[in-house]
């Protein structure tokens, strides 16, 4: 039985690695359709990654070990995070050792090293991107933790599996605190994954770049790893949101049939969330960077209100 749980764990990571690019492809495809363009298809991200892997790596002369090490670290943290978030089953061996705070820290490590790598080469755009990214991070991370603490107040635990368990076992309760936390989480997820009101993932204009500016100097397999990790990050945030706010479908036992059902429900959730994401991205314009304090400030406000309403109203 114990080995079987590890099999599920590996299955989950394999799904993360293979489906994340397809999800990005799905979002891009919907976006093309909504804007009246012809899309490159669901599998274009795979082709991009394969192409990048076959190219040579070009390193600047003054690149230090941080620059070379960062892509592997970013990729590794994304894979590890995939082992913590319950996507298919609650019985994950790694999940019992790591809770949501660890998850936030994992994303923070990846961001820290990306920012360092952006400054490592010494180009102007890298430093600019790093400074912007850290500005956003300093505002988004407290809000993220606040939103998660609000959810964990209701379930009295910071372990994701435990949170899902509580939502499953409890009777249907309409919780104002969870509604606030969900709103806050959506705003934070848009900021953390660099989607449109905060950052434009498809931009080619250096002056407006945030994330892309940091990784401007990367090429070849390094760039492939970072791009792939980025796709996984988007996927992971959606899975995190699904596990905390709409966990229905995640298997509680390790039976193969339940796992398969969980997989199908996960795909349905992804399709829906992708459509919602495209609606948000097409409907909104990118925000001025100085407006971001207000955007993330309201995320923090929502999360705090959620926590307060837990005490006041529940």
């Amino acid at each position: 039985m114990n080995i079987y749980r590890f099999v599920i764990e590996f299955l989950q990571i394999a799904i993360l690695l293979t489906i994340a690019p397809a999800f990005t492809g799905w979002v891009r495809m919907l976006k093309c359709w909504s804007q009246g363009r012809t899309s490159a298809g669901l599998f274009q991200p795979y082709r991009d990654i394969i192409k990048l892997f076959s190219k040579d790596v070009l390193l600047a002369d003054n690149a230090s070990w941080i620059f070379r090490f960062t892509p592997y670290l970013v990729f590794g943290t994304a894979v590890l995070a995939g082992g913590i978030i319950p996507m298919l089953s609650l019985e994950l061996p790694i999940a019992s050792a790591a809770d949501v705070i660890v998850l936030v820290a994992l994303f923070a490590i990846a961001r820290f090293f990306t920012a360092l790598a952006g400054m490592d080469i010494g180009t102007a755009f890298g430093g600019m991107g790093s400074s912007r990214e850290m500005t956003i991070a300093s505002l988004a991370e407290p809000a993220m933790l606040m939103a998660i603490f609000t959810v964990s107040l209701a379930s009295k635990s910071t372990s994701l599996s435990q949170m899902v368990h509580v939502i499953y076992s409890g009777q249907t309760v309409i919780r104002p605190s969870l509604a606030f936390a969900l709103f806050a989480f959506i705003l934070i997820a848009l900021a953390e994954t660099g989607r449109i009101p905060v950052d434009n993932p498809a931009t080619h204009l250096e002056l407006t770049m945030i994330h892309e500016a940091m990784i401007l100097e990367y090429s070849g397999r390094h760039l492939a790893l970072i791009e792939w990790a980025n796709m996984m990050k988007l996927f992971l945030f959606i899975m995190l949101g699904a596990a905390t706010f709409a966990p229905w479908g995640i298997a509680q036992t390790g039976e193969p049939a339940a796992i398969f059902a969980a997989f199908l429900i996960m795909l349905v959730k992804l399709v829906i969330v992708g459509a919602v994401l495209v609606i948000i991205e097409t409907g909104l314009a990118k925000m001025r960077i100085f407006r971001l304090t207000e955007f993330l400030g309201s995320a923090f406000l929502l999360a705090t209100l959620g926590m307060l309403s837990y005490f006041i109203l529940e």
Partner: protein
Amino acid sequence: MDLNIAAQLNSFLAAFVLLTAFGMLVQRRMYGLVHLFAWQGLFLSINTAIVGFEAGKHHLYISSLLTLTLKVILLPYILHVLIRRLKLHKEVEVVVNIPLTMLMGIALVIFSYYLMAPVSRLSTLVTRSTLAVALATVMIGLLMMITRRHAVTQIIGFLAMENGLFFAATSATYGMPLVVELGVALDILIAAFIFGIFFFHISTAFDSLDVEQMARLKEEE
């Protein structure tokens, strides 16, 4: 409808009333403010109906309907007409430091919770937990009147404050007597007309509805 679910819906709607209050605090555009005000009235009206159902007080249905016609339809309509007539619809107000205002709002929520905790411990009503939210809504309306400089936004802050008072009455004592509520509703309606007339006079006298302009009114020395 189960009573337990009704109580939960009640606190859920209370949370949304608070959310719209915060939304008004940070909203810059005139039309956005009026829409948020209408939403707050809608949540308030549904909440009143639910409380009426829970408590079996039928006069609350009437005050819920009154809230719906007055605060969701009539007042926003009057404000809309005013904004259009006074050509304010493109105006974006400069608000003093939005994140700071939000933090002050949060502090007010904590303060009113602290203030209301002993009161709601004594109360036996189902709605006792929403009392703190009601007080917070009143205070945020007040904060909005203090931090804004535009006459129309100050009026909306005043109306939001009245919303909070109405909400407090509903959650503290299952609403005021119907006669009082009808009187208050009439007052609000008359006030809205008077505000309208005043706005026209202010804007013809000063070419603007910024209340800072009124500093010019003092006598020369």
